[in-house]
């Protein structure tokens, strides 16, 4: 993965971006301490395709990359708007 196709800025050098963690929905406000600690600390860390938060540091633009963590291939770059409008709200 050398060039990332940023939804806002177009194709840019991967070094301009910062990894921001796996895309995970926050637990509700009534969640237990266990659910919160699981959310904060545990990771799937899958050796496969994962949806990840990324930030283009120069423009502070956050978006999602669907990436294969074994081949380092980017499957898709998705705006947060498109990503979450496809996912039903809890």
């Amino acid at each position: 993965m050398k060039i990332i196709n940023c939804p806002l800025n177009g194709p840019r050098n991967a070094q301009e971006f910062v990894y921001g963690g796996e895309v995970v929905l926050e637990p509700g406000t009534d969640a237990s301490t266990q659910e919160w600690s699981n959310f904060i600390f545990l990771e799937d860390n899958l050796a496969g395709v994962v949806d990840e938060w990324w930030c283009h540091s120069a423009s502070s633009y956050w978006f999602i990359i669907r990436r294969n963590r074994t081949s380092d291939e980017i499957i898709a770059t998705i705006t947060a708007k498109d990503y979450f409008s496809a996912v039903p709200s809890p």
Partner: protein
Amino acid sequence: MPLGLLRYGLRKKYPAKPWFPAETPLKSNYDIVIIGGGGHGLAIAYYLAKEWGISNVCVLEKSWLASGNTARNTTIVRSNYLTPEGVAFYEESRRLYEELAGELDINLMYSARGHLTLAHTDAAMRTSRWRAEVNKHLGVDSELVDCAELAEICPHLNLSRTIRYPILGALYHRPGAIVRHDAVAWGYARRAMELGVEIHQHTEVTGFDIQAGQVNTIHTSRGAVSAGVVVQAVAGLSSEVARMAGLRLPIRSIPLQACVSEPLKPFLDPIIVSSSLHAYVSQSARGELVMGGSTDPCPLYSTRSSLEFSEGLMSHMLELFPFLARAKMMRQWAGIADMTPDFSPVMGETPLQNYYVDAGWGTWGFKATPICGKSMAELLATRKLPDIIAPFSLDRFDRFEQLGERGAASVGH
């Protein structure tokens, strides 16, 4: 010409003995199965047999012996950590390392060169002083040194005031050492096998049968095995193996690259680490500079090397030793570091009754090989958690009791 050596090699009286015999079939049952044939797994096997007399043990390694992070680290042994729990743990490991060559009867090339963690900012000087005081309090030889002392300890270091990040001082840890990583694994493996442990290379675990909170059967690429007790010690692949047991871990797998220069005349005695410059270096017995930096920017299950790494590292290395500008880099590689949120390992019990974990070793695993082997062996043999590893339990995150070693564990954070 060494004719004596030639005669020795050709005589039938001294036949070469393979250290690791050819593949043998898996038995159907073992008392203890260790998943992962790296330094940690092999050390656990050795101490189980030696200290607890348990030799009905098998080590399952999916590739060739110790081909994972044990083959890929930068061979540093030190105990200059930040937390009292961390210092006690790594110091015990360092003490075991000091005597290990004799115990395993193998040339480990263990060399206590001294370890310098350079401070380039006031904040770093404060942290170094803090670490020095914690170390001294626990009987570990570390102290804060200034530039005048640095000039004597490492004459070739660039102590110029007119560079971007001038060195202000350093944490000097005299017992810091380098050791031959492959020999550590081979030594533990050979001794363990002499004591009756079985080591199976090219045997990959593919799944578990779990009933009533216990692992009953381990499925492998060479057949099924049952065991009383199972432990996983697979570093970068910890989450994948744990997933097969229905467990989630607080781990992300990130490549850690390293490289080595052509052999140079010996000039660097101590091991140099600069957190600010994201660089560390030592000179091996062969004269090669073994260099590393920070982990890769994002998780990846690959040991490929990147140009970004070597570009970044060399630019910082030349700030420390400008005269290396014309030295050639010889080889670059990577391991897969299983990073945890608090830069401390995950050791001990899991929600499964007979399944134990040795993971989350990130960039700090090789130096802990002996103490990990010893304490995990005690846990597996007695089924009671040894005090020295209690702070590293998996459930510490449930209680928000992280053991923060980020500042002391590595570089580039």
